């Protein structure tokens, strides 16, 4: 069945010598590049924690993670889409939509069953938008940018329509516990993001599906010629991205105790920035979910630090944007990534 007994009749491939000696101990360029951002990060964290000891307290670290949990979920989904060389601009609107859906369902109910139902409905609403995106991208061949630009507006519109533009306040305690509760002393959202991360990262790295995601992003035509189910792969990443954004919307509405259509507006900025800071290539096929996690934590820490330092929200926007640009520039310069 295999052809492994076919060998050349003389000699075998001569391999160039592997790295030997002291060169092995030094970090190579790729690892160094990863470290550079950490070092830059340290330059921000260390002075800040000296000036403001509260900054590195456990409770503050947990609050940073809590703050970033919503971002993290949508950024994970966005990473998958970007790995296939696409983009999902609709995640912010999905966050609003799913929050509204969950809030509407839970309104006036108190049983745990309804909580479960509303959570699933929120996720399903997100997945449905993702499915819509995926079908258009994978089967109609519409560019993802156009598709999700459309659904960004449509999902937001649907959220406004079904909520009649109101804020739907949530008073179900079980539902509010999604963000306020703890599992083994760790806030539930943090447990959720780490579970989501572990599953996604593991599957992306070790499964056939993960391989195919990278291959489709790296060279669509070659993936097709190699016989991969290209359309299904594309569809899957948009659905996952939508579902994760849906989950993020549920958590956010539980955190702010209201479901509002505009809850997640502007979140696509962070969702795209985090993977890009973490080294996932917008051209597709390159990068790791660890990078995204790093990007999210970096952005969250900086936001939190600015709040602690009482930086005006207006300036926060400027600083956040500047950091995105600077961080990616450092990465590119150190990596010597070239245009060609």
């Amino acid at each position, binding site marked *: 069945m295999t052809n492994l007994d076919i060998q*050349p009749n003389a000699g075998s*491939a001569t391999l160039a010598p*592997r790295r030997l000696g002291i060169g092995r101990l030094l970090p190579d360029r790729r690892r160094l590049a990863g470290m550079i951002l950490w070092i830059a990060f340290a330059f921000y964290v260390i002075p800040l924690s000296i000036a403001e000891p509260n900054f590195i307290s456990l409770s503050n670290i947990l609050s940073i993670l809590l703050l970033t949990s919503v971002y993290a979920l949508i950024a994970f989904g966005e990473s998958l889409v970007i790995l296939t060389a696409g983009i999902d601009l609709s995640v912010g609107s999905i966050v609003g939509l799913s929050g509204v859906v969950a809030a509407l369902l839970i309104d006036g109910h108190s049983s745990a069953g309804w909580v479960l139902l509303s959570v699933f409905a929120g996720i399903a609403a997100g997945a449905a938008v993702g499915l819509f995106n995926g079908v258009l991208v994978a089967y109609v061949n519409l560019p993802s940018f156009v598709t999700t630009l459309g659904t960004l507006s449509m999902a937001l519109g649907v959220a406004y329509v079904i909520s009649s533009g109101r804020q739907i306040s949530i008073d179900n305690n079980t539902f509010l516990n999604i963000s306020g509760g703890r599992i083994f002393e760790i806030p539930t959202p943090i447990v959720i993001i780490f579970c989501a991360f572990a599953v996604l990262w593991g599957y992306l790295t070790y499964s056939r599906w993960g391989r195919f995601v990278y291959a489709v992003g*790296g060279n669509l035509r070659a993936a097709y010629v190699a016989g991969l189910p290209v359309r299904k792969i594309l569809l899957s990443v948009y659905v996952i991205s939508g579902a994760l954004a849906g989950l993020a919307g549920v958590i956010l509405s539980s955190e702010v105790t209201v479901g509002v259509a505009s809850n997640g507006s502007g979140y696509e900025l962070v969702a795209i920035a985090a993977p890009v800071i973490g080294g996932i290539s917008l051209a597709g096929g390159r990068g790791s979910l660890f990078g995204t996690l790093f990007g999210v934590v970096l952005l969250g820490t900086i936001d939190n630090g600015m709040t602690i330092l009482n930086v005006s929200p207006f300036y926060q926007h400027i600083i956040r944007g500047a950091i995105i640009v600077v961080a990616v520039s450092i990465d590119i310069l150190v990596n010597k990534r070239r245009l060609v």
Partner: protein
Amino acid sequence: MVGQVMAPALVQPEHVVDVTESGSQPISLNCAKLGKRFGHTDVLTNVTLSAAKGRALALMGENGAGKSTLLGIFAGLLTPSSGGVFVHGEAVENFTPTEAQRRGVQIVTQELSLVPALTVWENIHLGRELCLGGWEHGVLDRRHMRKRTAELLDSFGLNISPDTRIDDLSLSHAQVVEILKVYNRKPAILLLDEPTSALTEGETRSLFKLIHQMKSAGTSIVFTTHKMNEIGQIGDDVVVLRDGRITLNGQVDKTPTDEIVSAMVGRELSTIDLQLHQPNYDARIVFESRNLITTKDKVEGVSLTCRAGEILGLAGIAGAGRTAFMECVFGIGGHFGGDVVINGRTYSGRRPGRSIAAGVAYVPQDRKSAGLVLAQDVVTNTSLTQLNAFCTPLGIVRRGVERERSEKSLTALRTRYHDLGQEVGELSGGNQQKVLLSRWLISDQPEVLLLNEPTRGIDVGAKVDIYRIIATLAERGVAVIVSSSELPELMLLCHAVAVFRNGVPQRIFSRGEFSEEDIIRVAIGEGAAADASEA
């Protein structure tokens, strides 16, 4: 090398023959003690050579020897780690393409570098646009550029419209456009990295004519090739690289081919015959196409059969429909009519995934755009099509087995890489081709194997291994269909050759009837053959 191939026999110590008399011509390009390392590996070490005005230098070496790297440095695409490059005696300081072009150096790279979405005339004039009234920020002079392009195409004997998009060209035509683009810039020094690997014989002849013209106009040329007979046809001087070091430097007419080959591979190659088994003509018909027609009239009714164990060659000039036929069978090209029958069952997948499931395997000609995922590592690329064989039911890849199998099939093809986790894009062109071929050795053998230019860019030593592997696969009952623009290759490897012209196989030659002349005559059409022989 018809009917004969080189096989490795004994290892010889490295020997350097240095004949540094470059005739009476002045030197236009030279380098001294050039070194290049990527990360921690030396790709070029201590390379000193020179190219003289009006002469052609053949740069030879096995896959991964460092030829493309060296040309890349000359063209300003790469910066050397040590040593110097001199153009017309002047040291180069900035290694950028702009700088190199300013000094009159132009390159045709191994992989195409045209803009696919632009037309032929736009590509040919890219960066050198002609403008109305000669004002370079003014309005483009389209008419003039189109006309110039038509002239160039005409002089090459290529019958395509200047308005064709590169997307719509075959690989060989695109290669010609790339060459014409560079030719149009009237370089003082022209670097050609395997220019003929994607060309058909006729196009190769036209290219050589062009090169002779350029040489007599004083252009110095540095080229690489894996076709040994081309050294004598256009080369004046020859330099051989092995593992990034020069092992031979001499004049073509004073250096026998054997010597060049042994300097390349570091051992003597003796000539042996490929032991081709007799096909069993009673074996079942595995592959059959019935009056296959594709869209755009590229294939107009192809009916062919291939039995288990048979190796069927496809010959023909560019655009004769061989690639379109294979792609249609595999489900990439547009299918218009007719059937493909695999093992007696009409197969209507029309999609690569289904074709593979039905037992059809395809090695595309254009490895860069349709074959490999360049940003991914060697293992991933090797196992891509057969990944199911290495997965648990839950879809988790068993990486240990995957690595082991990949390594074995890569070694069988003598693929050179630093480690299995290296990005495929970092491998040399020929080694990328080997990765592509190794895909079909890694797991269950296919029923039908379609090979489109399988040895494109592969060195002499490894070609033999590939022929042998193809023959072994056939002996085990695979129906193999090989398309190649090298007739000697087909005549060595195949039991029968179908000659295509105008989208239809005109005639099928069986092994006993093989004759290069006859095949060419059928390929270009009887009348045209007479013209060609007069020319």
